[in-house]
């Protein structure tokens, strides 16, 4: 799972009220890929990103990012390269995604988040 994907995922328990996004990431195994830096793609992606959630998940992996992204940041090459790396190169192979509201943990195995509920959990 890339952090890009994390940016879309939420807890889907129907009984889960409130803060079901973003999920807290516990990464046990990470692989780093080597995609070529693409400034335009990175900028476009940032335009669509939930920055708060991204900031938080990067933080949990030990990458501190600015609280807010200013228009000048978009031209800061060093920062853009770091963001590209975080978005496209970091792949979480195993770990868990945990809901901050109800505590439901979703496993990540072989790089794939399993977001399926048990029969008994379905509304």
């Amino acid at each position, binding site marked *: 799972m*890339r952090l890009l994907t994390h940016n879309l995922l939420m807890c889907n328990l129907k009984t889960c009220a409130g803060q079901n996004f973003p999920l807290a990431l516990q990464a046990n195994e990470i692989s780093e890929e080597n995609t070529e830096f693409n400034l335009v793609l990175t900028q*476009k992606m940032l335009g669509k990103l*939930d920055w708060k959630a991204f900031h938080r998940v990067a933080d949990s992996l030990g990458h501190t990012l600015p609280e807010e992204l200013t228009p000048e940041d978009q031209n800061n090459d060093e920062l853009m390269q770091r963001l590209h790396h975080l978005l496209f190169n970091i792949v979480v192979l195993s770990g868990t995604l945990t809901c901050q509201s109800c505590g439901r943990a*979703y496993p990540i195995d072989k790089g794939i988040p399993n977001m399926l509920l048990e029969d008994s959990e379905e509304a």
Partner: protein
Amino acid sequence: MIEFCLWLVIVVIITAISVIAIPILIITSPLWASTLLVIYLLLKALGLSSIVSNKCSQIYDWLFFKSDKPRKFLWRNFYNALCYMFPQEEWKTMNYGYAVSSETGYMIVLAKEEESERFSYQLYHFMATGFKKTGNLQGQIIVEVGSGRGGGLAYVVRNLKPLSALGVDYSKQQVEFCKRTYTYPNISFVEGDAENLPIKDDSVDMVLNVESCHCYGNFKKFVGEISRVLKSDGRFMLTDFIVADRVPAFEAVLKEFFDISEKKDITPNVLLSLKFDSDRRMELIQNRTPICCRRLLKRFSGSEGSAIYLELESRRSLYLAYNLVKKSS
């Protein structure tokens, strides 16, 4: 430890049953086999065999196409098993395809390695371009629900260039297949359920759903979920086969959440695709699958003369495509 003991007990019981029961079954086979034969002949003589096979057909139809929980369970295992038996990477799509009415049925230019699944890719092209109206999906976040073996979504990413694409499917085997097979940085796959999408509200520009919703136990829940995850100006491109009688009820559900911006009856295009593609599908089943599964697979394959082909040809079922926009609330 307790779990291990439990397993041990189960294994012992199963072994005991097979050691004792199978010989008994074999020894007594003249008895029960002849009884079955007599019953069969009797039914046939009395003209009741068609009633029995009709009942079986009805049960089958209910299980696979009408029930709630059993339907979901059966399809999931069907797709898991299919992908387990058939892990070959050259098989990437699983829909009946779309052909235009011309000598060849071709609509788009494809790469050589895509050629063998041409009509399935054409269906994706037709849907993802909003019925051939847009040339690309630049800047969009797209999601496919029921992404199967992922070939369709990967085609869309390669050719229509969305910003990112997420495939959701509840079949573990298939999601693992996708993860292995497609490695573009902006495509990803998760295990998830169409009726409980793990995707946050108002975040998606387009949802694709190709020949998948006939498997869902609760269609209304699914449509509600799509409406929830789409942005207010988002689009929902939906296509599947539907029994003609059930179309009004089907559309009533859609209209609770969406306005139908455009609807196409693509039954003729799907039939054409099946005609062009018949030989390839039969060849695959005949040469690559175990003999015991061929009957079932042929039933679903859609080749000329198969059950689904006749359904569509007689228009008892239709293959419909919808371009839906979210109702402004």
